[in-house]
């Protein structure tokens, strides 16, 4: 369990609801941290307050499950991190820190480069997220070859380590190693060499995502692959750039259960192998219990509870989380009725005052509609935004 040593305390002064995470000289470097992110969508009907101060942290080698019902802002959070919000969206405040650098303050080109290098998104529907007219191989290697300068060193190094690790090398492999050494010294990689190295890398990653016959898959078009194969190809496409942060947006939703299990296994495997920070966005608590190290629950545009996996399932604290847990079908507890959370998702154009959950909350009292509850720690690494736990 990689629970970070976080201490939630009230930020000094003013604005209620914004809390600064205090970590003296940041012991465990968070790969990605989102602080007080507020996003508004300008629409004809009015301003949709999609994100209302999201706070999140993900460490390297950790899978964070981001759960919540439809429209609670899970995907918007991912898009905001990648700088891919639609034009009618506006980031009101907050910061997205990638290794300490604020992505929201960067220039367009710099954000593009960080997407190229550090952040990868995988989307939910593998059918529509691949270009139908190009082969899988071209689509996987494209990011590498189109910005070869960025990746040249990495590609050369990876190939060299592989060649050097070989017990016995053939003559051609010796020559290849030699030419790679020269390329490394002169910092000059020809496009042809780059393409070759890139497709070797693509092969490695197709193997990593456990696609059988990767050589054939490279030359195939998306329509020739099944749904599970496409999803793996998409993941390979995301990983081939060795991102530091992987945002997986409902990647298992469109797949059947057996393939889903394989993909989840793959995610765990990747966390261990490439040491990426993975955010798994889902609305399926079963999926969360399967792979995640920590869980963050979102409701109506803000994170209402963050906890380690075991802690969360043992002791869900926020009334909304409790409702979620109660709504899980359990064959072992034969109750006549299925519990559900009363009411429906609030209208985000006119969100409820104070705690956005109060109209549906069975425990709400007069303080709830008045002000926003602060993030309060109930036990180490387990924080909740609810007045029931102080604040």
């Amino acid at each position, binding site marked *: 369990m990689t629970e970070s040593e976080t201490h939630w305390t009230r930020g000094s002064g003013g604005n209620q609801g914004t809390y600064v995470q205090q970590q003296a000289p940041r012991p465990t470097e968070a790969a990605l941290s989102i602080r007080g992110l507020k996003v508004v969508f300008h629409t004809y009907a009015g301003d949709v307050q999609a994100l209302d101060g999201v706070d999140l942290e993900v460490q390297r080698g950790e899978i964070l499950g981001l759960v919540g019902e439809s429209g609670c802002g899970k995907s918007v959070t991912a898009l905001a991190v990648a700088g891919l919000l639609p034009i009618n969206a506006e980031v009101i405040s907050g910061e997205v820190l990638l290794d300490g650098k604020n992505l929201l303050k960067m220039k367009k080109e710099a954000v*593009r480069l960080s997407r190229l290098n550090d952040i990868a998104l995988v989307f939910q529907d593998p059918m*529509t997220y691949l*270009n139908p007219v190009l082969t899988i191989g071209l689509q996987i290697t494209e990011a590498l070859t189109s910005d070869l300068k960025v990746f040249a060193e990495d590609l050369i190094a990876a190939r060299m380590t592989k060649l050097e690790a070989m017990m016995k090398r053939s003559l051609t492999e010796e020559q290849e190693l030699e030419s790679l050494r020269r390329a490394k010294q002169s910092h000059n990689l020809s496009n042809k060499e780059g393409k070759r190295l890139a497709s070797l890398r693509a092969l490695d990653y197709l193997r990593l995502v456990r696609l059988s016959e990767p050589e054939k898959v490279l030359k195939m078009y998306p329509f020739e692959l*099944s749904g599970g194969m496409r999803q793996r190809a998409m993941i390979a496409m995301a990983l081939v750039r060795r991102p530091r942060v992987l945002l997986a947006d409902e990647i298992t939703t469109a797949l059947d259960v057996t393939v889903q299990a394989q993909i989840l296994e793959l995610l765990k495997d990747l966390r261990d192998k490439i040491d990426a920070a993975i955010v798994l966005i889902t609305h399926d608590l079963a999926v969360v219990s399967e792979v995640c190290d920590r869980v963050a629950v979102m409701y109506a545009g803000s994170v209402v509870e963050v906890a380690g996996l075991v802690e969360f399932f043992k002791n869900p604290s926020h009334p909304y989380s409790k409702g979620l847990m109660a709504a899980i079908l359990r064959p072992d507890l034969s109750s006549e009725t299925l519990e559900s959370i009363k009411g429906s998702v609030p209208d985000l154009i006119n969100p409820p005052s104070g705690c956005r959950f109060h109209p549906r909350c069975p425990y709400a009292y007069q303080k709830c509609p008045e002000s926003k509850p602060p993030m309060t720690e109930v036990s180490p690494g387990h924080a909740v935004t609810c007045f029931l736990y102080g604040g």
Partner: protein
Amino acid sequence: MDLEKTGVGDSRRKSELRYTLHLMRQNPIVVVGSVLAIGSVVLSLVSSLIVNPAAGNTQNLPIRLCWNNPVIDWGIHNLFVCPGAQVYPLGTDAYGRDLLQMIILALPLDLEVALTIVASAVVIGVSMGAVAAYAGGLLDELVLRITDVFFSIPGLSLAIVLVTFFSHSLFWLTTAVLITWWPTYVRLIRSQVLTEKEKAYVEALRSTGAGRLRILFRHIVPNSIYPVLVQATLDVGGVILVFSVLMFIGFSPSPLLPELGNLAHAGIDNVFIAPWLVLFPGLTILLIALGFNLLGDGIRDALDPRLRR
């Protein structure tokens, strides 16, 4: 499961192509169209082998305007019969040149001009339309208003004005037709790119940090080019028609130039005593234009997903 899937890859791709060709073969009209279109292209490629280009030369020609084809009887009195044994299957023109040879000589010029115009129009139209649609906003608006200006003026009149204003050279004739032609493709590709750019794979591409030009020209344009290709095939016939019309109504750089419209123009003075002079060049234009139109129709039908299956 995966193994079996990968096995079918190659054959399935080939069978899609074969199915497309099969669909085209099934329609007799399309077969006629492709024979005409491909035939004219082949004929123009080998024309210099069949016909001596010097045949276009008018010097030292003893005969002027005669008919020597025993099969066709025009029923015209005082028809000139060519002296000597040489056969002129389509008669001679007013300068004494074999009309059949002239028509074959004219093919490469007409097709070259038509293909140049269509190709340049596609390149200009597609790049402008695609960029405008992808960028949106002010640029899109600007490009659209420019095309509006061109659409509001009838193409032929605009070409006539341009050629009159500049010169009757082949270059300006080509340019004039090109100028009236490219806006069609802007509209066509723009509408395609507008739908294509909203597709999910474009978002996925952006998430991988792909540059805008790369997304547009490598991914979106290849996905939206099919209607443009169909339109381009149809337009080859149309451009030949417009170009020969310009020549026919008298914008030819030289009366001797072997060009289909120009040949018809040269024959119009003698049309009552030698109707072949207008008829055969005109028929040739008709056949080529018809051929490319039918071929374009065939391609469109074969690529239409609703008509497949």
